[in-house]
């Protein structure tokens, strides 16, 4: 990367970071990307966005905003007084005002939108024409995974956000090449030593809660995606060694709940409540493909280790397999009767494991598109005598180990290890410490599982924010 590009990249990062604040606006022109989009995202795009376009209006992007809706343009450059968007957000009568059934937008935000219209509807700070965003990220070559495994060192200290109680472990990932676990907490990501569960260091995630963590195949990059529910969603790439932010991709109106990075680190895929899977280039942040086949929230995304396929699952239970490079449809996998919770590829890319809220774990033969092993009620909950009704038995996460062993965790409060042939090998309970916490009437269950790169340690995070680990060490001879 040329030094000039690096500089540009840093500016972009800074703008992204402070874009939501109003600090920079005195000197800088008011732009859609920096000032207006966050307002629309927070107040408008639920109904006028990518998923729904009430009155044909989509305020999620600059171009679609300029285009307007069924009733014509909503913004007229230089004429805020005549722009219909100003009329509807400032209407005196609450019945006519947008957003509907809510308080009016704060005065400062209305003023910002007015100023933006009157100053000529700029898209961004640079110029009228948007320059290519360079994210300054160099993908590791597929073959170049020799050398020492990346481990965090010299991470700067991160000040953690104080919370009432620990935040649930929503995301957990294991490095493919090193004894290293990444674990999500509230507004930060911890690098954890799986042996003793000590935190080696942390990186900040001020965008909200990371919902998904994935190490790249090289082990050098950590993808963290998440955000604040119904407020913002973003995917961030971190350098594992330095903890440095490499790129911020995506600008969603809801927290991203599913994401993965391709084996060649050239692209990432994200999904969430918008029902759309987006594939971005990590090089310049451009949107490569938009996959629109899911009819409900996209809940799980996984690239195959050989880089050829992309698996995505949704809340109706449907899984789609796509061509990872072209974004073309390969086939759907339909077996789950409730939300897909997790997808994981075996290292040979021949098998995909899926788990769902229906209690089912499936090992898919991806060459044929059939389930090769199917385990209904993989985590059956105990039924007290005389108790009727459905007891939640969802399987919340699946992960493969290096030798093809599978680990799962479920709402039955256990973590399970399965052999390659689908035989149950061992069950662990996370309940041992239940009595130590003041959690009467609150059910704690494991939310995420991972196996270390060598398959020796099983790690699980739970809904009370704790990390559990168990050794699966081979016998000493």
């Amino acid at each position, binding site marked *: 990367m040329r030094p000039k590009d690096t500089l540009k990249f840093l500016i972009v990062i800074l703008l992204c970071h402070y874009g939501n604040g109003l600090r920079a606006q005195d000197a800088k022109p008011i732009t859609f990307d920096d000032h207006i989009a966050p307002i629309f995202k927070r107040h408008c795009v639920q109904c006028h966005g990518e998923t729904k376009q009430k009155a044909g209006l989509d305020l999620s992007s600059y171009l679609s905003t300029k285009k307007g809706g069924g009733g014509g343009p909503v913004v007229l450059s230089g004429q805020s007084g005549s722009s219909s968007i100003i009329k509807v957000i400032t209407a005196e009568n609450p019945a006519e005002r947008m*957003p509907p059934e809510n308080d009016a937008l704060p005065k400062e935000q209305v003023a910002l939108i007015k100023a933006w219209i009157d100053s000529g509807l700029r898209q961004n700070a640079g110029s009228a024409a948007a320059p290519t965003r360079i994210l300054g990220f160099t993908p590791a070559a597929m073959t170049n995974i020799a050398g020492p495994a990346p481990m965090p060192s010299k991470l700067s200290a991160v000040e953690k956000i*104080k919370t009432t109680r620990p935040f649930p472990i929503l995301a957990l990932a294991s490095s493919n090449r090193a004894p290293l676990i990444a674990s999500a907490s509230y507004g930060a990501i911890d690098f954890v030593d799986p042996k003793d569960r000590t935190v080696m260091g942390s990186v900040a995630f001020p965008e909200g809660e990371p919902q998904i963590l994935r190490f790249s195949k090289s082990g050098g990059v950590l993808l963290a995606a998440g955000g604040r529910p119904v407020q913002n969603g973003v995917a961030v790439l971190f350098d594992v060694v330095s903890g440095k932010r490499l790129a911020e991709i995506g600008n969603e109106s809801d927290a991203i709940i599913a994401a993965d990075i391709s084996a060649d680190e050239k692209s990432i895929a994200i999904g969430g409540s918008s029902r759309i899977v987006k594939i971005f280039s990590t090089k310049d942040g451009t949107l490569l493909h938009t996959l629109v086949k899911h009819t409900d929230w996209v809940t799980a995304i996984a690239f195959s280790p050989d880089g050829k396929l992309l698996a995505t699952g949704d809340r109706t239970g449907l899984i789609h397999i796509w061509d990872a490079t072209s974004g073309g449809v390969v086939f759907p996998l339909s077996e789950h009767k409730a939300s897909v919770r997790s997808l994981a590829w075996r290292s040979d890319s021949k098998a995909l494991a899926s788990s769902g809220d229906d209690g089912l774990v499936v090992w898919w033969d991806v060459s044929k598109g059939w389930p090769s092993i199917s385990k209904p009620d993989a985590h059956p909950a105990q039924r007290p005598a005389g108790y009727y009704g459905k007891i939640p038995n969802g399987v919340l996460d699946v992960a493969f180990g290096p030798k093809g062993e599978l680990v799962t965790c479920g709402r039955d409060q256990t973590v399970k290890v399965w*052999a390659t042939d689908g035989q149950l090998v061992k069950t662990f309970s996370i309940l041992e410490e239940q009595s130590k916490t*003041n959690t009467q*009437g609150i059910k704690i269950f494991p939310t995420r599982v991972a196996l270390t790169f060598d398959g020796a*340690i099983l790690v699980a995070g739970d809904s*009370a924010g704790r*990390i559990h680990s*168990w050794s699966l060490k081979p016998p000493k001879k």
Partner: protein
Amino acid sequence: MFKSIVTWFSLIVVAWSQLVGNLSAAEPVASEVGFRRDVMPVLFRAGCNSGTCHGSARGKDGFMLSLFGYDAKGDYERIVNEIVGRRVNTAAPEQSLLLLKATGAVAHTGGKLFANDSEHYQTLLRWITQGAPDDSDKVPETVAVILFEDRLMFEKAGVGKALKVTARASDGSTRDVTKLARFFSNNESVAKIDANGMVTSTGPGDTNVFARFSRFTTGAEVIVLPPESGFKWSNPPEVNFIDKLVFERLNKLRITPSELCDDSTFLRRVTLDLAARTPTIAEYDSFNADTKPNKRAAKIDELLTNDAFADFWTAIWGEQLRIMGGDYAPVGTLVKAADTYYEWIRKQMRAGRPLNEFVAEMVASSGSNLSNGPVNLYTMLVHKPQFEPKSFAADFSQVFLGVQIQCAECHNHPFDRWTMDDYYGFVSFFTGMKRKPGVEPRERRIFCDPTAAPARHLVDGRPMPAKVLGSIDPVKTTGDPRKELAIWLTSPENEMFSRNLANRIWAQLLGRGIIEPVDDVRASNPPVNGPLLDALSKRLVESKFDLRTLVRDICNSRVYQLSAKPNPSNFRDTRQFSHAHLRKLRADVLLDSVVVVTGVKRGFGGFPEGTRAIDYYPRGGGTEGPNFGDAFFATFGRSSRGTVCACETKREPTLSQTLHMAVGDTVRDRLNAGGVIKKMVDDKFTPDQIIENLYIRTLCRPPNDEEKVAMRSLVGDAVKDTSAYEDIFWSLLNCSEFAFNH
């Protein structure tokens, strides 16, 4: 190989908390907020779990709650555990989506429901701060919702009064839930009620306002009086308890009842209501000639002893019980079965069998559909090749109790007391009903298999043994549970049953139920005159469920005999029986009246010559379903028997009815075919006599002076020309005075 590895696994340590210190430092809260006790009511009050929002069957925007909270356990799971950390964030409680959405802090299709400084917000926040615990086994259930006042009286419009709502729990404790209840008014042109329970009168009349909390709907009566000036109670004489109760109510509402109707109006009204046809000229003459003071009562007694009365009620029951003859054997509704059933009902009606015994026999009967009439309750009520316990139970309660319990199939009844427990327990009375082929191909033998499994609760799959509505414990029986059902249903203590019968009988005679519609009895549809319905029901029970006793009382009351002509005080009243309602004749009564007036019979396919319309019921139909009968009936709105709904009998006049009467074969072909006019012309009647005869024959009254002149001028000099009289006859049959009971 992997297996050999893991046989040696070892558990390292148990667990480790990232923020152990913070966990124990969670702030203690003064009083614990419970999910069911405190949080669910907030979701209810804010409307989160209403049918148009997250309470819809599929939820809204990906988040589903049970409608009005019938499934608290499931709601807890969905709010707290379905998506960890999103809807409820116990680490940073203010960031919980539940709160951000409800306060409109983030985009929410449902908008802002309450503010950050509201009590509702504080309740939810405190609950989440406590860690969002479930309180499943600790919460006493709400058993009653009580209003501070059950009657609000306003002297004028524009006055307000606050309603206070109290909930009583199963442990005997009470609490004020005014801020958690939802309110609605049945008629906003009388009184409005706002979200905080403030009632404001808007115009004269009476209605009910309701508060809903938990699964209860409780109402208060609201009366807004018209101006007192000019009102003076006319103090009409009271014949019996009915007059006393109706007049009491009218006096309270400052409504003056109409005058008593004249003799000919009474004769026509009571003959149409009890004999299902218009009176003949002979009946008119003899009633007019009678000078005894009690001649109206005598007429009622005479009509009650006539078979036509029993036959008319057989027709009414036949409609409600959906008697139709079909030809498709598996349905079991062969014409012969329908005949057997119909004639059995006729026999009971003619013999004056107590109505409770009549119903009880049907409910508990078993055997052949061809030889045992009453068992056809189980073939006719739901015309299906397979017996369907759920549809049957719903129709059964609608017919015999006037209660629509089918809402409770999927969720607790939103506007009544019925829960899913009630519904499935009730369905279980019928889950054992079976049909097996009999001796001849079209015979079906109906029986109950007492070993059949009971219905299962939709929410949790729990088996629900047979249990009567409103009871907690199932019936104790080892055999056919329908025996217990029949005893409970028809016992004098079961007011739901006697009130339903009394209300339906009243509606048949007055044109409007005290509860209307008659088959939609629910907490939010209370009687317009509760004491009256109570008294009628009591009278029915005291008379050992004798139909004729109650009909006699009603017909003898001054209320029944009031004129249809309103006065300035009561013209607005449509529901307090201050004047007679104009009632369009039922299709069968209309047709029989045309036959009586013209003297020309009407044939029906498959029935003997001379069959009256009221004795007709649909026959025919095969695998495609039942045949709903003669085209005349379809046009004039006789119940198609498509469902058990009372609304199947249509009362609205339509254009095709007018056209049919004007140019259709029913009237046109009968004007001269009966020879009525020809005979009078041949017998040298004067034009005035003929005109008077036609008036009395058709409208049960002589023409007035104006009419006499007009009709006479129509005839002119052609005094022997029948066509002029036919025109007059045609006009009389086509006027609304003929088509209505007034």
